[in-house]
């Protein structure tokens, strides 16, 4: 049994209540969602909040719905307390964003996925965390609420770097909005040393095809290789082109140059660069295949 430092515990009853508690208990208070990132750190005494504010009763943040919102158009709205398992089992997600399914299948194990939330994942912003990359690639928008009301942040604004987000101590991430694009496909692939291990490296891609079969929109993101943003370098190369193996090879090459991995027990730098390249090619291939399939779906 690993024992955390002493802390006080309170259960929030609503979003407003949680915000009030964060305000009242100040900088040394933290919300706990699934607890699968925070509690291990507390047990190792790397995190030592004085107050733990449990937001697991905020069922109002556990939802998935397809909606049309002003300025964003058609979106999938994902409540911050939505569990990994819910994402994995959703038919809407399977249809609209297969990248999420690909990623969720390799995030931890069923026990972790039953509790861990998308909000906790994004707010933890672990460099090897998978859903951040997925949300970057899907160009999601984070809805953050604080004492001063709600703000909408692009992933680039939200995600500031390893373990760092734009969410202030007295704010909560409420929702992630993912724009729905027609004629699109997406994919994610990860290399891990063992099922349930964090990524050695991973890549995600989302592709939209034009009527003539060329790529009209694309985003590529990487996990665990020192890049907290999409690989914008490849977009110019891919957009307007017909998807070919040659193109993917070039995209892979650019991706491996764009990343900045560190050597660790999971592998040396050149291996991780190689993976960035290899996995980028694989996810682009899969995303284009899925996009093409979604077009033929519509024409049927």
């Amino acid at each position, binding site marked *: 049994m690993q024992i955390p430092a*002493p802390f006080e515990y309170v259960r929030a009853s609503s979003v407003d209540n949680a915000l009030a508690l964060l305000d009242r208990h100040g900088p040394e208070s933290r919300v706990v969602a699934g607890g699968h990132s925070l509690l291990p750190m507390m047990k*190792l005494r790397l995190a030592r909040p004085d107050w733990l504010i449990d937001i697991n009763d905020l069922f109002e943040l556990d939802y998935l719905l397809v909606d049309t919102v002003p300025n964003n158009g058609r979106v999938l709205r994902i409540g911050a307390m939505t569990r990994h398992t819910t994402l994995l089992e959703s038919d809407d997600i399977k249809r609209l964003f297969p990248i999420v399914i690909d990623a969720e299948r390799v995030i931890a194990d069923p026990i972790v996925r039953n509790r861990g939330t998308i909000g906790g994942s994004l707010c933890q912003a672990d460099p090897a965390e998978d859903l951040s990359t997925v949300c970057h690639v899907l160009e999601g928008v984070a809805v953050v609420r604080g004492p001063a009301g709600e703000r909408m942040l692009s992933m680039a604004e939200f995600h500031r770097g390893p373990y760092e987000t734009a969410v202030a101590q007295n704010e909560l991430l409420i929702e992630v909005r993912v724009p729905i694009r027609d004629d699109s496909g997406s994919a994610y692939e990860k290399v891990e*040393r*063992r*099922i*349930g291990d*964090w990524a050695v490296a991973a890549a995600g891609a989302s592709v939209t095809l034009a009527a003539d079969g060329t790529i009209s929109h694309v985003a590529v993101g990487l996990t665990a290789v020192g890049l907290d943003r999409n690989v914008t370098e490849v977009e110019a190369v891919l957009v307007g082109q017909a998807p070919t193996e040659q193109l993917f090879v070039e995209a892979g090459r650019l991706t491996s140059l764009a990343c900045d991995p560190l050597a660790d027990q999971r592998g*040396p730098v050149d291996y991780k660069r190689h993976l960035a390249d290899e996995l980028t090619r*694989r996810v682009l291939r899969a995303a284009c295949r899925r996009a093409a399939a979604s077009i033929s779906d519509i024409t049927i």
Partner: protein
Amino acid sequence: MTILEDRPSNPAAGDHDRPIGHGRMQRKEDPRFVRGKGHYVDDIVLPGMLHGAILRAPVAHARLVSIDTTEALAHPKVLAVITGTDLQALGLAWAPTLSMDVQAVLVTDKVRFQGQEVAFVVAEDRYAARDALELIQVEYDVLPPVVDARKAMDPSAPIIRDDLAGRTDNHIFDWEAGDKAETDAVFASADVVVKQEIVYPRVHPAPMETCGAVADFDPIDGRLTLYETTQAPHAHRTLFAMVSGIPEHKIRVVSPDIGGGFGNKVGIYPGYILAVVGSIVTGKPVKWVEDRSENLMSTSFARDYIMQGEIAATKDGKILALRTNVLADHGAFNATAQPTKYPAGFFHIFTGSYDLAAAHCTVTGVYTNKAPGGVAYACSFRVTEAVYLVERMVDILARKLDMDPAELRLKNFIKKEQFPYANKTGWEYDSGDYEPTMRLSMKMAGYDELRREQKEKRERGELMGIGISFFTETVGAGPRKDMDILGLGMADGAELRIHPTGKAVVRISVQSQGQGHETTFAQIVAEEIGIPPEDIDVVHGDTDQTPFGLGTYGSRSTPVSGAAVALVARKVREKARFIAAAMLETRPEDLEWEKGRWFVKGDPSVGKTIAEIAMGAHGTIALPEGIDGNLDAEVTYDPPNLTFPFGAYICVVDVDPGTGHVKVRRFIAVDDCGTRINPMIIEGQIHGGLTDGVGMALMEIIEFDDEGNCLGGSFMDYLLPTAMEVPDWETGFTVTPSPHHPIGAKGVGESATVGSPPAVVNAVVDALAPFGVVHMDMPCTPARVWEAMQGRTRPPV
């Protein structure tokens, strides 16, 4: 009175495929485990019990400058803080290890590995004890550590064990086996010689239950009751008596349900001693249970052998000789648990399953600034390292000769008629018949078909590998003339008592950590005296309740205690014959045995069952001279030799050429553990061991950085395999009974852990053959496999 039994006679000829005593029955212990009613050390709660926690060193090598416990003692829930200085006053600062060395219980002079025990806090609850650790102020003067075993003997290396008088280096021992001159001569004239450095990195047994103890010292009558996670309760009691001065009859060691041992729970850890000291100091029971990081960082590791292997053969593939020099990293204290004469355990079985003209090995043990231990993780006393070495070398030779590795093995096996076989390093293999086992595994695998598939795949650029390992183990330590631990002979006792109603209790000296003793040993008795296993209670793990013996490790329970149990049951059966004769008013020699009953020769309807005889024994009939009024017996079994289980394993892997990821697609395991008692339990042991083997081959390693920081201190860093990494195991068996074991059984607990790592690594190396890879060291992680594909294989340490 315990008597020393005569050598057992050869097992009666008969059908040894037939499992013993109801065969594949469900485990008697499982109802409590599957219902969550197991009772482990941490479940023990005694009135007034306090809780201990250990402050551990944050660095690997440092002089202890000062410890200030004032603030911790001021914590309202803290009752005591014990330091090395306090222990020194009691003469308990150092304790003997199982290898004639000493280990610091708490640091007095110098920290020698990260995670070493520095102070012990006793508090009202576990939380307070843990919190108070942060209130102890310790000043360290950090010293350069010795991390790389290869540099431990450099003249410039810091001396780790300056506590030992006259120490001028980090050398522990040199040991050798076999004939060097003879071996060198064979090598000199051989057609083909191949060399390879083979590293078996440090791994950890990581049992599901970490180590812990509850010590209850009664100051009035001076009795110590110690509940402990131990695989060897009797040996621990004797050692505690020797170290603490508490007389042995006043010590009771209880090992309740144990959540996995794998050798991790053989030694005596400082935490156990500290719980005892804590109880003596406070006059209350003290519980100490380590957390996962403590278990991984401070308790007994396994392996850590750097082996230079060489194999000699003729051009046409007759293997002639093997030799190896091994550098063994033993950590900061030599705390490995080995029979005294064998500082490298049974490593000299590295000649494997082959008929060699010569063999020689040397092993040099060194100190480093790492956690001590060294024999753990289901290794049969270093047979794991030995099997890995020979089975890799044979594969490397096969590559060199461009021979199929199965064919090379078949060509070189010791032949059936050569058994008992004296190998070149001093073993006498009791029995074996290797070829049918090998052939069965090849048949189950569809070996030729697999090779065909591999050929096709290679043409398409796909990487598929087939790996073979054929292992011979030496288990069941051991004959008292050769083997002891700290002077205690490696025998085991058994007591059998048949109650008047014909139900029985058998008390054994070995302790189960999951192996199914409560079932297997009941089945042995059931077979011998013919009452159902359900009617036989197996008592183990409590020194007040069981006869003396050395415990469960090295796959020795069935070879040693299993023999004791069979013999004690036979003794009871013989005694029953005399009592039955008295009851039937006939002569014992006129009676004949059928399972469960003595009857009059020629008149089967006249006889007495064991239950009737038990009642008779305790009843009023006149008993023959020399027969006392019970149906009980005791034996202590001194094994005449070890037993030599063997097996043929075939592993099929697919490697992703783009990522280096290895997928174990199939694993075929054909084991020969002699007579099979409960095939389901055997399969369970094999499934577990194979999973261990896949884990070691693909992911497990305890690494250290240059400062000696342990990089494997949590399950995020120390990876254990899950059901997802392993295929459906395909198991098979052959039966070659041990000629000297009363029922022909050989032990199987570690076979699969010993035999499987080379099969997996051989498969990975085979898959990488198109890249010219001849060898790669474990663990075969995606990164390391990819590096091997780039021609950059590197040792893991």
